[in-house]
């Protein structure tokens, strides 16, 4: 005999303002099987939870429905409370009276009626709930970190320092990421490489870290605690075991005029190359697309000059499987391509560059050795115009969001330029200066007051190149209410921060959600900012949203802490939402086996005592099943059912409507 308790939360005014909570609990009390109906101001508070616990014990409840906020918010809270009172936590369900009702409706009668319906549905469901036990699975205490920028490096170092193994996968030939490309960093103007390169070396030499550069995630199987990840080790054509990094090969390579990606195309590299002098590992790779030996079988010079015989033109991509218990995604960002702005030259004007290009111009190790020279003619620009919000805050052409880092790096650029070109003009077009951060506002003021950057509030409508080589920048000074025209020598666009290409595909491999712009979705915007909806997969850095270095490093350390927390226990518990097969009625049509996304449904032979196969049926592997229920819905005889969302429960819910 069911003895259900229904507890309606007012959530302060949040539910109570629109839903007549007393009426809902009174109506619930009359529903079949319900023995208690109560309402309270804050059900999630300690006294609220105590009400539930008390009722469970005193009324010998066999099931509980809490009508409150979204179960995504507090289901865990209430289930834990139920468990404390001795009720199996899976005998508690929540009716979503806040997000799905009081917050979205304003008519009290309608909202109250809907709330009663939602509660009735859950009462009907919970009457059919069965006690479930969490599934325990062993944890493989090795972490995979995807992305070798500062986020990935920091996460890997912190996990390694915690005594756990890490596999650090980076798609490029070297770790270091974008931070290695920066000249100085705001707001302290530290030399970026000076603070980064020791970390790179440490990551490469740490006994707990296995570095896999020039590698990508190819496929993912398994689940939290037990992922099997296949890594594609891209052909380097240079055997890193033999290579000493002497550099003879790339000094001799005759293919010299390849724009260097690291220098934003401003410098050149060879077909066999290390992307930058401080690269880790400091061992070259061959860019197969440009190598004449690999393309046409002609040349072979690098093999000839290599004193160690490390060059291997027959090298091929290899697949390598790693078993890991947790994953940190740290794939970072790239700059949006401003070619979409036809009015800014559509990417065709050589002296209209992006922020990274300016970083490389300003960097002492860059293609101009730190001298500001414009790309078209190598002359020192005397007027540089910086445009903020280029592609950011513009969902017509670019992105709706604020890219967060541009205000600060633009101020830094203006400052660096004025330090290097004393008679130069730095003009910054901005919409707002967002300098919320320790020492940030002071930094911007310094750029304006001490270094003479000219800040003009307004966007730019058009950039054209005049025949004398000047870039005519048509802007506005909205504070003065007038158009402003500036003849510039160089224009730097603060292009929007966007996720790396391929990040959506990677998210799909790991079952991680992403937003409309392709940034990875955290499990909760406030309370679970480094976790994802996929258990065991964590986020670090700009793959989640635009971030500057301090924020990225903080999140990377947080992700590492999460990983270490997960690894602290030898086993972990999973939600017991899994499918089960009724072997008596299964006709073994194999539709579920075909449908299962996890390979959890498989053939099973029913044998007699002598081991003779009597009949084949389908079966579900508890460890692999993630509980989507696709198998159950393709089963024509309904011989497969899903715990937590059983046929009986759904049937009862529908009948309650």
């Amino acid at each position: 005999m069911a003895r259900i308790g229904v507890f309606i939360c007012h959530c302060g005014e949040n539910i109570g303002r629109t839903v007549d909570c007393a009426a809902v609990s009174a109506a619930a009390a009359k529903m079949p099987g319900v023995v208690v109906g109560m309402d309270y101001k804050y059900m999630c508070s300690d006294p609220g939870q105590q009400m539930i616990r008390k009722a469970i014990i005193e009324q010998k409840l066999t099931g509980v429905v809490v009508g409150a906020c979204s179960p995504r918010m507090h289901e865990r809270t209430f289930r834990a409370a139920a468990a404390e009172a001795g009720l199996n936590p899976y005998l508690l369900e929540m009716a979503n009276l806040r997000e799905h009702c009081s917050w979205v409706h304003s008519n009290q009668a309608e909202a109250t009626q809907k709330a009663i319906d939602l509660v009735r549905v859950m009462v009907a469901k919970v009457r059919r709930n069965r006690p479930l036990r969490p599934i325990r699975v062993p944890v493989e205490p090795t972490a995979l970190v995807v992305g070798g920028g500062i986020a990935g490096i920091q996460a890997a170092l912190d996990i390694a320092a915690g005594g756990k193994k890490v596999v650090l996968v980076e798609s490029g030939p070297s770790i270091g990421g974008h931070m290695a490309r920066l000249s100085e960093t705001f707001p302290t103007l530290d030399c970026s490489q000076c603070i980064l390169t020791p970390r790179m070396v440490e990551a490469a030499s740490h006994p707990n870290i296995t570095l896999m550069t020039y590698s990508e995630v190819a496929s993912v199987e398994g689940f939290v605690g037990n992922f099997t990840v296949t890594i594609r080790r891209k052909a380097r054509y240079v055997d890193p075991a033999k290579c000493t990094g002497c550099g003879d090969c790339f000094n001799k390579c005759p293919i010299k005029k390849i724009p260097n990606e690291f220098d934003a195309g401003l410098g050149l590299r060879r077909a066999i190359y290390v992307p930058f002098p401080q690269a880790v590992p400091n061992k070259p790779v061959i860019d197969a697309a440009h190598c004449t030996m690999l393309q046409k079988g002609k040349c072979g010079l690098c093999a000839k000059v290599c004193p160690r015989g490390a060059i291997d033109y027959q090298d091929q991509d290899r697949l390598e499987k790693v078993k890991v218990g947790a994953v940190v995604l740290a794939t970072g960002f790239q700059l949006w391509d401003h070619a979409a702005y036809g009015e800014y030259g559509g990417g065709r004007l050589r002296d209209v560059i992006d922020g990274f290009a300016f970083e490389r111009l300003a960097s002492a190790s860059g293609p101009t050795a730190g001298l500001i020279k414009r790309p078209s003619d190598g002359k020192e620009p005397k007027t540089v115009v910086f445009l903020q919000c280029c592609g950011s805050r513009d969902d017509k052409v670019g992105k709706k969001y604020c890219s967060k880092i541009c205000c600060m790096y633009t101020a830094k650029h203006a400052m660096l330029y004025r330090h290097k070109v004393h008679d130069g003009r730095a003009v910054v077009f901005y919409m707002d200066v967002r300098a919320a951060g320790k020492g940030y506002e002071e930094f911007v003021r310094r750029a304006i007051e001490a270094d003479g950057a000219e800040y003009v509030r307004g966007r730019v409508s058009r950039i054209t190149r005049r025949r004398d080589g000047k870039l005519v920048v048509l802007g506005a000074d909205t504070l003065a209410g007038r158009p402003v025209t500036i003849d510039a020598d160089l224009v730097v666009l603060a292009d929007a921060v966007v996720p790396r290409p391929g990040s959506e595909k990677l998210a799909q491999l790991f079952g991680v959600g992403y937003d409309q712009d392709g940034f990875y979705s955290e499990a909760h915007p406030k309370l679970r900012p480094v976790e994802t909806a996929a258990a065991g997969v964590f986020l670090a850095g700009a793959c989640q949203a635009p971030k500057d270095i301090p924020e990225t490093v903080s999140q990377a350390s947080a992700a590492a802490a999460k990983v270490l927390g997960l690894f602290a226990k030898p086993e972990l518990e999973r939600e017991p939402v899994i499918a089960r097969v009724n072997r008596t009625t299964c006709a073994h049509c194999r539709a579920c086996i075909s449908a299962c996304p996890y390979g959890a449904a498989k053939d099973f032979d029913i044998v007699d005592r002598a081991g003779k196969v009597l009949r084949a049926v389908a079966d579900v592997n508890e460890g692999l099943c993630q509980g989507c229920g696709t198998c159950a819905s393709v089963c024509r005889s309904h011989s497969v059912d899903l715990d937590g969302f059983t046929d009986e429960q759904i049937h009862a819910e529908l009948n309650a409507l």
Partner: protein
Amino acid sequence: MKTLGYFPGCSLEGGGIELDLSVRAIAKAAGVDLREIEDWNCCGASAAHSLNHSLAVALPYRVLALAESQGLSEVLAPCAACFSRLKGTQVRLARSPELSQRMQEVVQRPYQGGVRILNINEFMASLLEAGLAQKLTRPLGLKVVAYYGCLLSRGQDIVTGDDAEDPKGMEAAIRAAGCESLPWNCANECCGGGFSMSKTGAVLDLSQAVLDEARAAGADAVVTGCPMCHSNLDMRQMELVKRRRIPGALPILYLSELLGLAAGLEPAALGLDRHFIESRGLVRGGV
């Protein structure tokens, strides 16, 4: 012979008559029968638009309704302003059944939305596709700049199939006429539009900027498809020359004139003799 509806618009009966002459001539050469909408009225231009938004829709509505009732499913509006008004009205009517209903009451004529409006660039491109290219037997060998101005480059859902920031709709026709289209920065800049009389100073400033850039690009002539642009660049250029604000005169041609010349038609038949800035000298062996 293909038949196409024709809306010359008021300018083409007056200051922009060369556009009318040359469009009719080139259509004839290409074997297209232009059927003028009977009893058409003014589209209202920027005046209606400036003072009365209902009128700005109602006047083009009458034209569209007339065209439809006369069985014209496609109508050429060579004047860029007329094109923009007619097509803009068409787009708004298609979007709002409510507006259609209201306009039907105001104008007292039905319109089902079945008229497609072509601008001069689209018209020329279609002629070239239909075989006009073979008839262009006199390559002109000129260096020109293509001047789209505002209404042949911009207007959401009005100018379609071209890039507002880097318009290309005239390029094919200019090449077909044996001319080189030079890159320049003013293809879609404004000449001052309808302020020729009421704010002449602004028109002179803006037109001068366009002419300066055209000259700097090394152009022999500016090619346009808009009678307003033509009038500002051609007629007002006299004043700029007179005041020595520009070093010399630069011929302004309609796109249809350029193609007419390349087809070997008489300059006078195309209206070249009616320009303020002498342009007949552009044709080899011309006057």
